């Protein structure tokens, strides 16, 4: 291995699907090219409906790209979906828990789905219960947990198999201040030379605080990608909201002339 592999790489990724109600084609993604390295936290920033969820769903092999390709840890998501899924931990935007399972059982169930050996699984579950301070409610049914406890259970589930890539779709949406703080701490704690966190958000302050690099996405296109400093330099704006507006203006002017 001469060059370290990229955690995520997409090339001209597009997704067109049919709207079920109107039967119209919807271009959720248009030629999105993106790369994330190991050791960085990458934030995908954009308004609702920009294509963030679609990108993350393609990377987690939920959806197949209409054209272009996407690779996770060097593996094509379309050709080796199961191998890709082994390497990712995915927290969807609407993530929920099985109401009638306890956190411990939830972890055991997903560990079994990952094919973990019972003894190793048992040890790993105990380790996670420690790490996320879950012992107190580990054997209570998920339907009786508080939202913070549920969130810790979901995160523990996502990192159960210690994936090199963590994909989080709007991880702080709908959380209260305390839980949001916990989540931000958790993401920061994952910063590691052999790991990558890719998350989407429309909260600018989160992106400013957490991200090594930021990708700005709008109407299914990646308008810009880089460190906060690079984006500031590129647009001449100080804060992300200004940067975002400047990028949108530039894109619209560009599409008007071509």
């Amino acid at each position, binding site marked *: 291995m001469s060059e370290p592999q990229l955690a995520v790489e997409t090339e001209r990724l597009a997704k*067109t*699907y*049919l*709207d*079920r*109600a*109107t*039967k*119209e*084609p*919807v271009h959720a993604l248009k030629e999105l090219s993106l790369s994330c390295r190991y050791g960085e936290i990458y934030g995908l920033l954009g308004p609702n409906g920009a294509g963030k969820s679609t990108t993350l*769903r393609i990377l*987690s*092999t*939920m*959806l*197949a790209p209409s054209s272009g390709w996407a690779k996770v840890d060097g593996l094509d998501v379309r050709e*080796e979906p*199961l*191998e890709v*899924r*082994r390497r*990712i931990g*995915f*927290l*969807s935007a*609407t*993530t*929920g*828990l*099985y*109401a*009638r*399972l306890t956190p411990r*059982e939830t972890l055991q*169930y*997903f560990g*079994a*789905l*990952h*094919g973990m050996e019972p003894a190793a699984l048992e040890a790993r579950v105990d380790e996670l219960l420690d790490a996320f301070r879950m012992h107190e409610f580990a054997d209570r*049914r998920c339907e009786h947990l508080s939202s913070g406890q549920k969130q810790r259970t979901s995160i523990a*589930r996502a990192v159960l198999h210690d994936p090199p890539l963590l994909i989080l779709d709007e991880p702080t949406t709908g959380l209260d201040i305390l839980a949001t703080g916990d989540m931000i701490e958790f993401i920061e704690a994952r910063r590691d030379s052999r790991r990558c966190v890719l998350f989407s958000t429309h909260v600018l302050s989160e992106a400013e605080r957490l991200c090594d690099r930021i990708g700005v996405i709008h109407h299914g296109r990646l308008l810009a990608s880089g460190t906060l400093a690079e984006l500031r330099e590129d647009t001449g704006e100080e804060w992300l909201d200004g940067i975002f507006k400047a990028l949108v203006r530039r894109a619209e002017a560009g599409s008007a002339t071509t």
Partner: protein
Amino acid sequence: MSRRPGSGDTLRLALVVAKGEFRRLLRDKKAILLAVVLPILAYPAFLLASQKLNSLGQRQIEEREVLVARDLGGLPAPLAEAVRARLDARDEGVRFDEREIAGAREVLETKAPDKERLRDWAEDARGEAYAGLLVALAAKDGAPPALHLVFDGAGEDGIALSTQVLGPLRQLADELESEAYAARLGADPAVSFAFQSFDAAPPKDRQGLALGRFLPLIAVLVLLSGGAFAAIDTFAGEREQGTLETLLSQPVPTIALAWGKYLVVLATAIAAWIGNVVSLVLSASLGLFDLPGLGVEGPGTARILLAGLVFLPTVVLISASLCFLAARARSFREAQAYLLPATLVGAALASPAAAADVQLDLLLALVPLAGPSLALRDAFAGNLQWLPAALAFLSSSVYAALALRRIAVTLDAERLLASPSPKGMDAGADTAQRSIRTALVAVAAVYLAGGWLQSLDLVWGLVATLWGLVLGAALWLARANLRGRGTADRALPANAARGVGPITSLKDALQVCTPGGVSRHVALALSAVFAAPALAQAGRHLVELQSRFLPLPGGADLEPIARALESLSLPALVALFAISPGITEELLFRGAVLRGLFARARAGILPPLVFQAAVFAVMHASIHRLAITFSLGLLLGAITYRSGALWTAIALHAAYNACAVLTDRVPTLDLAHPLWWLGTLPLALLLLRPRPALRARP
């Protein structure tokens, strides 16, 4: 690290999924109680309760002590003695008081007894604690002596009285009469005969039939209700609680996930069924209630096993259908809303088995649920016919296998995750609505104007109806649809998937283009002609079947029509009753109307097919032929869609009608021979090829 999952892996993972699903399911105590346990307990309890109530009522009537005032003074002494002896021999709660009831006798002796006064008498008698009066009138003017019973039939005493007294008295009167005849005429006893019947069927067969008649229905209902709760929880529930995406992002093949969930649904359905049958058998054998079919012998293990085997593919099919149904729903509520229609369909398909005279034949054997239900019944009764039963088993196995092959679709992420967009644009809706309106107006016109024309002159009225009204409506609609076509709905991917785009030309508006080449359509039309006799057989079958389940007052009187048509030659008949409707009705229903409905991008395939078939059935204005005209309309529509043009439907419709005309006129032609079924093969084979795409015109 990079190992590919083999089939062993898939099975192992499916079992992991099934285990997890079971664990969740079994903790939902309320649902299990309602869906599995309650049906097991409820219906023996219900049977038991109804039985107990019944016998309680019976006993009350029997135990009631009823007092009757009796005045037999009008009878000759020997006769009065015989009556007394007969009535007093019964010690079942009726006692008689001998007394003079002259007032009532006076009333009864008048020619037309005053009912009001009789009522008064009955009431007075009740006041004296008599439930009724038994009054004898003397022989008079050649009329024999008479016994009158006055009682209040609305009261419980009256009901008891009538059952205890009327029967014995009638019997006595009959006996005395025949004795007298025999004595006077010295009659030969051989002028009449004694009648006794003996059912030679072994009790095992009789009881098996009784049990087998209602078991399929119970099986279908219990399988549906038992499996539904698991299906809703594992499919719709997964979507509602937001765990679906998490599950789908695990390194498990989708097929393993779907199989795991399916196994849970199957197991729950079977558990509910077995629990139900066991509770039924147990409570019957404990003597809690009498069950026809579970007498001393019962149907026997061999028959139960055979019936179970015949029904097994259907169990698999029902569970798979539940999964598909539940997977379509986004929430528990939506899934539950799908359940009632599914139950109705299931019950309807299983119900033929309840009618003892519906025979399992080769055609019914092909119908899902219905065929296996009949086979199950016959297996219990011990008169299973092997060929149709094998066909029922085979066909339901094929349906089940097809359903299982598609089971992974239940978890198709592309479909489940696609979010509906808020803005609604309904391409082609105007065209579709115009088609619906025109179809309904055309039917009304055929009823009113067509009926009037045909009453003037049957033959020319029919010609005018078909070639004037029906064809006119078709052409008008096609032109209107062509002119009114929207621009927004061109070249939509959805339409490409259906193979139906916006209307491009008048030919397209009537579906008379020939996509896929002229030779293909000629071949299709020819094979349709060969398929017609078998379909005509199936049609007769269907009419028969409908009349069994929807018994209607006698059919329309076709005598005058038949007489009016006797003068016509065979070619004229064929032209009038086969070719004319074949062309004109197809141009309207499968041509203009169906095409217009298809033009609506949102419509899909099935709703347009069903609508046009329904209107087609209504136009034939005969409820006796409702099932057959609807089915024919559906078949013709499906064939038109599949072949891409109308020619096949025209040929089939004309040939189908011609079969009826020819059977009538040419008795030597045997169109009812089973070998005609082979004639359906070419058409079926040709239709296996997908709908050819029309070249889009600029």
